[in-house]
């Protein structure tokens, strides 16, 4: 058996193991050696340090909202330290306007900035649908909170933050699509400081339209534990038609901040 030396003619299998080219038997063999030999384990660790930085090229992708619940369910976890969310009477999520009024009335729960998401959808009957949609959220002085671009053909949305306010530490901003008269549908947990790519499943794509709205709520870490918003809405936006963007047909979305009510 060759010694796991890293000099001379080194055993290539430790590098190959980290790279991922060994078959199942080959992998199992290396794993046994790592458990039995300190130098084998060290050789593998050395290759991990060399190669794993390459994962920086992979774009982060938001997992679906329900996955965190599945994990907590499997581990039977109570989320320690979670602040009690405002009680939501059943049926009140039917109308976003009613819900928004409720959170405004409770003032102290609303963050200083209110994020409005304007979602631009263009449909021309004679031409194919615009392949790209975008949403820009800007403050009413022009300050941008988030920009979101949607690639319909790829069923994906990229949400890029630009220093939005209103999301405290230990909380997650979560994006919702609210069809007119319907209950909010989870789009996914977004980020206040990193770009996020979100997959748009067919059920969601089908509900995009001028009568629906997008909204951002502040949730416990990892997103709402119930599948419906549990925290205050810090932004909302209408979906409306707008002129398309440049030659590529893409439109940019602006995320608008409106000054919220004075803090309590």
């Amino acid at each position, binding site marked *: 058996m060759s010694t796991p030396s890293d000099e001379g003619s080194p055993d290539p299998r430790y590098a190959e193991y980290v790279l991922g080219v060994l078959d199942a038997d080959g992998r199992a063999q290396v794993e046994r050696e790592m458990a039995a030999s300190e130098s084998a384990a060290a050789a593998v660790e050395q290759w991990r340090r060399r190669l*794993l930085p390459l994962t920086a090229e992979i774009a982060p992708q938001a997992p679906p909202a329900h996955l965190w619940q599945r994990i907590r369910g499997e581990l039977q976890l109570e989320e320690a330290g979670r602040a009690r969310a405002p009680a939501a009477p059943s049926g009140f999520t039917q109308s976003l306007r009613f819900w928004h009024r409720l959170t405004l009335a409770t003032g102290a729960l609303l963050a200083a900035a209110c994020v409005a998401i304007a979602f631009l959808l263009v449909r021309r009957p004679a031409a194919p649908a615009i392949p790209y949609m975008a949403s820009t959220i800007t403050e009413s002085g022009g300050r941008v909170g988030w920009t979101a671009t949607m690639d319909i053909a790829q069923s994906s949305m990229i949400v890029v933050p630009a220093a939005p306010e209103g999301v405290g530490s230990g909380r997650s901003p979560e994006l919702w699509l609210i069809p007119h008269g319907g209950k909010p549908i989870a789009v996914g947990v977004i980020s206040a400081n990193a770009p996020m790519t979100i997959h748009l499943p067919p059920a969601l794509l089908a509900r995009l339209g001028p009568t629906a709205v997008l909204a951002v709520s502040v949730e416990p870490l990892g997103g709402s534990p119930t599948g419906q918003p549990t925290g205050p809405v810090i932004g909302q936006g209408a979906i409306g038609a707008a002129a398309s963007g440049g030659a590529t047909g893409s439109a940019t979305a602006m995320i608008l901040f409106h000054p919220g009510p004075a803090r309590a």
Partner: protein
Amino acid sequence: MNQPSDETLALERLLTRTGRGDARAFAELYERLSPRLFGVCLRMLRDRNEAEDVLQEVFVTVWRRARDFDPARAAATTWLVTLARNKAIDRLRQRRPGAPLEAVDFDRLADEGRGPPAHAEASQEYARLRRCLETLDPEDQGSLREAFFTGATYKELAERGQVPLGTMKSRIRRALAQLRTCLET
């Protein structure tokens, strides 16, 4: 030796606390790392349902094995990304052998990752690795990248590249050796 970044130290603390049964630390770890690890799984598995299953396995394992994490041996991100890669590759190896190779768009695969790094935490280590990769023969670099990102076996890589198995092994081993030399310079 690079000083660990603030982010690395923060993740270390979260992982250590998770190992002690701190559910809130675990939730924060999920919040911070799940998009990156989901990206890794998606890239390798090319199937959303499987990627979700594997990501769930990854975090269940994180909860159960975080107490084994030793910051002296490995950085927290390395530990977590390794876990995700290993589980994804194990899942790949379980796929029925002889099943037709999925209809992967290989041109897109080759283009993916040729641009700048996807997130701001890309490190000095990445910059050095990238520079060393660029010194390789383009074909060698391409095969190495394909191996890393897709988790394909030597046999699958040889079939896709339409070269003999021995050729692909030589190519990859040569690339790895050159990479090691470059990184140690």
